[in-house]
């Protein structure tokens, strides 16, 4: 189970208009959506009248049009399909960390953003799926089902079942070596999936507010680093973090992706608005 209450995420999403993902090419799905496919098919928008051919069902005849002439016409609508957005949030002990009880953990904040984004997408009629899960979620109740399914998502953002031309949004701290992130993004970009990286960091990870002699210990393993005087290395650390972020932004740009950062002490609405801007058309 996720630690984020679904109503909260939905309330957060309710502050923004429904999100319809910009899609030049919609992932090849048969599901109905709002993205017109410029050919006849299932949908609401009028596409063309064509002459009745034998074999068409009598119910499909547009009698109003047919009455204007002697021929029978069949009304065809545009095939409108939904875009699929694949979502993923990073997991692991590092994501459970927080520097102060006042802030949420990074995982909590990432899940909140993920669910709020999913709520926005579902209201826009899009389909949402998680990496590592076979089916997509859509419509009412999708957010709750998504929240239910969050613990079962793949540990890595790798899933061959993601359809081509789908969109992907990845949440995490992306503090792993750049190569790992690059591999994931390249793999997805190889299948024409465009996406967005959202780096969620704790404020302490950005500012390194500690003082004195501190022995830093990693959360994943026995890794540790003894810093005799933290104040002295703070500038250097900031520099290294900036370099890491620049690397992330560069690899995202290389794959045609975008990259943004978010801090857990900042309001989640800001991050959600940024995501909305990047995903919405225009």
């Amino acid at each position: 189970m996720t630690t984020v209450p679904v109503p909260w995420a939905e309330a957060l999403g309710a502050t923004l208009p429904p999100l319809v993902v910009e899609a030049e090419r919609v992932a090849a799905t048969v599901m109905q959506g709002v993205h017109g496919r410029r050919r006849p098919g299932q949908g609401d928008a009028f596409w063309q009248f064509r002459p009745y051919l034998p074999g068409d069902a009598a119910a499909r005849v547009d009698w109003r049009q047919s009455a204007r002439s002697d021929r029978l016409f069949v009304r065809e609508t545009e095939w409108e399909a939904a875009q699929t957005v694949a979502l993923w949030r990073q997991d692991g002990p590092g994501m459970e960390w927080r520097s102060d009880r006042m802030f949420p953990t990074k995982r909590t904040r990432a899940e909140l953003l993920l669910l709020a984004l999913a709520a926005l997408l579902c209201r826009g009629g899009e389909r949402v799926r998680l990496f590592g899960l076979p089916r997509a979620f859509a419509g009412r109740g999708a957010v709750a089902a998504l929240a239910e399914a969050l613990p079962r998502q793949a540990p890595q953002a790798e899933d061959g079942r993601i359809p081509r031309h789908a969109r992907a949004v990845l949440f995490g701290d992306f503090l792993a070596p750049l190569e790992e992130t690059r591999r994931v993004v390249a793999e997805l970009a190889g299948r024409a999936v465009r996406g967005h990286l959202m780096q969620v960091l704790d404020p302490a990870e950005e500012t390194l507010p500690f003082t004195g002699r501190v022995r830093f210990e990693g959360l994943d393993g026995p890794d540790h680093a003894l810093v005799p005087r933290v104040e002295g290395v703070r500038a250097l650390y900031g520099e290294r973090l900036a370099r890491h972020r620049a690397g992330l932004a560069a690899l995202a740009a290389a794959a045609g992706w975008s990259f943004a950062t978010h801090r857990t002490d900042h309001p989640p609405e800001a991050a959600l608005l940024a995501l909305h801007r990047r995903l919405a058309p225009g």
Partner: protein
Amino acid sequence: MWQIGPLAFAAPWLLLALPALPLLWWLLRVSPPAPRRQAFPAIRLLRDLPPTEETPHRTPWWLLLLRLAAAALVILGLARPVWQPAAGGGGGGPLLVVVDDGWAAAPDWPARIAAAAAAIEAAGREGRRVALLSTAPPETGEPLAATGLMPAEEARARLAALRPRPWPPDRAAALAALAAFRAAHPGEFASLYVADGLEHAAAGDAFTPLAAALAAAGPLTLARAGGRPVRVLPPPRAEADRLALRVLQTPSPAPTEARVLARTADGRAVAAATLAFPEGAREATAVLDLPIEIRNQVVRLDLEPEAGAAGVVLLDERFRRRPVGLAAAVETSADAPLTGDLFYLQRALEPYAEIRRGGLEALLARRLAVLILADREVPEGREREALTRWVEEGGMLIRFAGPRLAERPDPLLPVALRAGERALGGALSWERPQTLAPFPEGSPFAGLSPPAEVTVERQVLAEPSPRLAERSWARLADGTPLVTQAPRGRGRIVLFHVTANAEWSDLPLSGLFVDMLRRLVALSAGVQGGESEAPLGPLELLDGFGRLGPATPAAAPLPANRVEETAASPRHPPGWYGTPGQAEEAAWRRALNLSAHLPPPRPAAPPPPAARLVEIGGVPAERDLGPWLLALALVLLAADLLVSLVQRGLLAPQGARRAGRAALILLALAMPARAEEPEGAAALATRLAYVVTGDFQVDETSRLGLLGLSDFVNRRTAAALAEPHGVVPGRDDLAFYPLLYWPVLDTAPPPDAAAAAALNAFMRHGGIILLDTRDEGSGEGMNPGARAALRRLTRDLAIPPLAPVPEDHVLKRAFYLLQDLPGRYAGGQVWVARDQDRANDSVSPVIIGGHDWAAAWAIDARGQNPYATIPGGARQRVLAYRFGVNLVMYALTGNYKGDQVHVPAILERLGN
């Protein structure tokens, strides 16, 4: 001992450890503190940092300072520093501490003891031994003696046990004791004399020889209190309607004030008088003007500011309302309304005097201030002799004329009377009834205005004599005397020339009569006569501080007629004396006041020139700083521990906050919880209760009986009763019990005030008491004396009027329908409240019977009934249980079932 200014060290060699502090500084500096541990996800970014800072991390300077300060404080504390150490008395040899512990030392006693204790402390530090000598004679009556030499610790304990004594010190005896001490310890010794600054000898100078003897033996330090005068409050003079107060003091250079508080027996201050002493005055006076009713309640006067036993005056009967004896010629008709001889006298005197009635000899057997004879002749013989003696001792005899006196005048009259009486305004006379002339100057009635409507129709006439005018206190308008008086011995005889009833004049009908009698009683010299050699034992005694306490074993009884002239002494300490059996009647106790025989306080002679003078108080006592420094060091070390924990990250600032909260909660939990367990337990369930009588057999029967009844009720009804409790009224809270079973023992003492109040409150608030005398019906004679005990027990209880349980009483139909209410015994009556008290829902607060119900209900551990029913049968047992169920229902539901009686009638009416 090593001293710098006001600071001294008892163990100065420990200060040598102070130079080791720089070493500690160096040690602390070279060892860096342990790093704090911090989990951090972005550890990768911190790896392989270049060594940007060359200097290793050090312990911060303030932490270093904290630790050094703690170490320095430990060293200083162990060196036993003393702030402003007291002087040890100088000289060599042991220290003799002489303390004046008479009454004059009481007001500033703690300061005196502190001064002496400081000197003993200093002597202890110097390793000198100490002896103590107190100058007031001890309670035991033994001669004064100095203690042997002892270590300072022991001397301090002996000093702390000293208390000021409610009598003056005896410096001559102290001088003798000092001589004995010197004989035993011939060497030089230093001495400290904590003197009270007063000369206590009636004449001469006892202070100088003692001080000189002390100075001769070695260096003498004289500790004296300066500034405040020593005060004495002698017994007040009781005047007609007020107390005239006088306070004596040693002259004071500045004007001062004192207050006298009048207190009642329960300690309330009902009045206060302020006395102002001008500069250098030795005496001030004031009056305490009190209504007679309040004045009679005053039992002690307290001088403020506190002056010890000499500032306390206990007021006994002599200062209070005067006993007045009334006697008439014919006692039987004396009280006849409107016509009786004593009718008006009794009503006039009652509000402000204690009236005693009876035969002349019986009256004179007790102490009496005024004796009023209404037209009663005093025949020659023992009566007249006793009366004459009483008057000559100071009694005031007031006589009223009348036919008998006019017939046979006797010598106990202020003036010679003509035989017969004079009638004014009768049918055979031209004269008019006479009004009263204004009262002459010098008469006690002066100032009263005689109302015009008071007329005299008949009177006895005095033989004219040259002294008649000066002996007349009141006259008629034509100049004939109405009230004459003559002193006789120390007493006085007053004659009203009219009767004490309205037969001869209107005087007894007027308010003037009351005023005249009141002034006469006030004029009387107080309580006279009736005092014998009978010894009065000490009841309550004053201590040196003026507090009443129980009598000491050494206090001896005092003959009643010698209380006045006895001065307070160890043998007769000031306080209340009386016959212990009559202690309750306050009128019978006499007060022995310390201040009654004290001479006016005068300052002692100047001290010998060799003495070193110190003031008591003012100078702060020495202070041992060692424990405080060590405590401070501990605090610093604790702070250091906290800082270290925080530095290592073991205690986050938030964690520290949480730990603080937890400590607070722990502290709150550690507070001694109030033990309310028994009451709480009693309130958790409905249960019956029985009164614990103290007789084990009876109490056990009560318990088993109520246990059996509770069991029966639980099985047969919806009520759920827990195990019964035994209660003691007045000690246990009765509020939790609906029913109280009270077996009456023939030896039961009446309940005390608290128990009676608790039981009355229990009944008033709906509780029911079942009183069981256990001797009713077939059990008659089984418990002789229970009836009397029942009367005794219920004397203070608010028992309503009782009647036998009527046929239709709720008690007989609350659960079962019963004809009679048997217990172990059958027959007889059960009594409940007769009147239906609407306030309590018509429920009788008390049920009285004698059927020994508890024995019938009792079930022992084997589940059997240990007591056979009389006359017997299972049916009687069942009926007893059924009565018990009805009783419990009655106690639990009140008259609810009484209302059910009407159900058939209501149904019938509904049916129509």
